[in-house]
């Protein structure tokens, strides 16, 4: 008696639901300290959406995904996936989910096609159906040409797509993506993003963890921010940004020696808002009420004072600002994501000298 595949199947109406989930890790050795990786974690994901789960390193993102994907038992609380209790019916949950973890979990000793056929048989499709499904997925993930090459020879992006395809064999209700683009080049990231969008268009619910705020911004319609094992915010990306405040003016000084003068000017115009100065990137930014007036005024007075600027502009608050505000600290791989945000979409430059650290960013009070 197969369950109707409605996409949610849950009485609660959520594709994923976590309430007060606690996961404790016992420390090593005797009397080891107990660590609470999840400490009353709440999450509600609507069917057919991409839900971002964001947080700094060690916040509990991966633990949350592993608990929901039945890989880890939790100690307290309630967790439901596709309407099924994760603790009580892990086996049935497994036939309704797909998981793509931090590493592309494909068998490099097999070809792409052999991988999908093997996973299909292990999903109990039978030989003929597994073969057919492998063909469909290879086609859908643009891997048909490389189908009979060893997965070892695949590029990072191709391996990720094969990984995603393996997670999609049963057309799962819920797909868990744990940092799916970590370690991929820009092209690979773009490929994975396209694949994820296509999956959601096909009705799958996606829970996405990521350290790249721009990635969540692009893909997710809803975001939960997790810190120290707890959800500390849950909203749409726009609402989260509004929470931090309106538009920001941003000035990049041509000369680091002018930073103080720029900060004073911005402070005068912004009128009372916090002015953030980042010496490493010679950047000054602050929230403004009237964006156009502020931009005009700052530009004019800097010109009057003969202070050279490299760039001046307005920007919406980024999720990064949200993060700083909510957690009091930025994301760990600051370098990578800041670079991605300020360059081409999806471009990431590990050599970037943009090493701004929010913990130490000077905050000039009004």
């Amino acid at each position, binding site marked *: *008696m*197969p*369950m109707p*595949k409605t996409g949610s199947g849950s009485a609660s109406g959520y594709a994923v639901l976590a309430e007060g989930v606690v996961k404790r890790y016992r420390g090593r050795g005797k009397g080891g300290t107990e660590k609470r990786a999840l400490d009353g974690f709440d999450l509600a994901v609507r069917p057919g959406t991409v839900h971002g789960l964001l947080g700094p390193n060690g916040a509990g993102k991966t633990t949350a995904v592993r608990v929901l*994907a*039945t*890989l*880890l*038992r939790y100690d307290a609380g309630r967790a439901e996936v596709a309407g099924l209790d994760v603790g009580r019916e892990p*086996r*049935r949950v*497994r*036939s*309704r*989910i*797909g*998981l793509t*973890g*931090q*590493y*592309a*979990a*494909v*068998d*490099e*000793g*097999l*070809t792409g096609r*052999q991988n999908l056929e*093997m*996973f299909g*048989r*292990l*999903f*109990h*499709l039978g030989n003929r*159906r597994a073969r057919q*499904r492998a063909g*469909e997925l290879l*086609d*859908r*993930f*643009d891997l048909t040409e490389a189908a009979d090459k*060893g997965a070892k020879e695949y590029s990072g992006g191709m391996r990720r797509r094969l990984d995603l395809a*393996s997670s999609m*064999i*049963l*057309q799962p*209700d819920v797909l868990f993506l744990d940092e799916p683009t970590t370690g991929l080049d820009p092209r690979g990231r773009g490929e994975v993003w*396209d*694949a994820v*969008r*296509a999956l959601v*268009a*096909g*009705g799958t619910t996606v829970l996405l963890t990521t350290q790249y705020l721009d990635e969540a911004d692009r893909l997710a319609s809803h975001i939960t921010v997790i810190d120290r094992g707890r959800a500390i915010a849950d909203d749409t990306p726009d609402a989260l940004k509004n929470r931090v405040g309106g538009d920001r003016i941003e000035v990049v000084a041509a000369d680091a020696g002018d930073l103080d003068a720029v900060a004073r000017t911005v402070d005068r115009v912004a009128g009372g808002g916090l002015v953030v100065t980042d010496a490493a990137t010679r950047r000054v930014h602050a929230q403004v009420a009237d964006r156009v007036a502020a931009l005009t005024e700052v530009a004019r007075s800097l010109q009057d004072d003969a202070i050279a600027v490299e760039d001046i502009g307005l920007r919406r608050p980024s999720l990064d600002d949200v993060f700083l505000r909510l957690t009091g600290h930025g994301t760990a791989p600051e370098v990578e994501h800041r670079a991605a945000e300020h360059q081409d979409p999806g471009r990431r430059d590990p050599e970037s000298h943009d090493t701004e650290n929010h913990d130490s960013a000077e905050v000039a009070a009004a």
Partner: protein
Amino acid sequence: MTTREKNPSATAPAADPVRNHGSVFWAVSDCWNITRRTLTHYQRHPSAVVWQLGFPILSVLLYGYVFGSAMKVPGGGDYREFLMPGMFAMTMAMGFMNTAVAVVTDAAKGVVDRFRSMPMAPSAFASGRGAADLVVAAAELTILAVTALLMGWRADGGVMAGLGAFGLLLLLRFSLIWVGVWLGMLVPTPEAAGGLYAVAFPVTMISSTFVAPSLMPGWLGTIAAWNPISSTATATRDLFGNPVAGGDTWVEEHALLMAVVWPLVITLVFLPLAVRRFQRLSR
């Protein structure tokens, strides 16, 4: 890339096929699929077996032809006749490394996590691994035996005894599957697993593989005689009708018995350890 499946209900397979058959059916079916996976690796890269056999074949050449003339077999007999069954036993014993490296590679690459997130039988990962390892071990033994025959080795113990000898060798390999699975879950990386060779090599040497324990210093000879590899080597020598060089200690006199008891003991200890290690992944 197509943006959506035309008709998800038609193309997407049934969501809950677990119910169509009993759990025993799926345990066997899943085990076979995992076995098939490993065998496909060898089918794609058959040279892997040859590489794995490089070490024992090189050892046979070194010991049989380089040191051979200086080696003596207590009780008389040809050294190379004595050496071959020891080589077979040692190859089986070293096989646990293949298991360990394969398991840790799967764990490190996230393949174990993928399997655990799928509705397959939880036992299949280890049982399929073990079944594949036994098939590969049987193939290795066949290649080694043919090589040995080409080098002049003869088994005159009769067909049944010969088959019994191969059975004992595979039994040793079987018991070491669980040591391999356990170690594979214990070590963090495939590179670290490679370091196990440093431990495994002396353990296989301090046995009756190359030299009779009775020729070693007393204490070392005792350790070598009680080495499970020695029991299998001595018992198979006997069954193949090769020079045995048996000592007069209890364990050497009961080699055939111990060639059965040792693998059972190893299995009884390491199978539960391996299972526990696997279960601890969810903690």
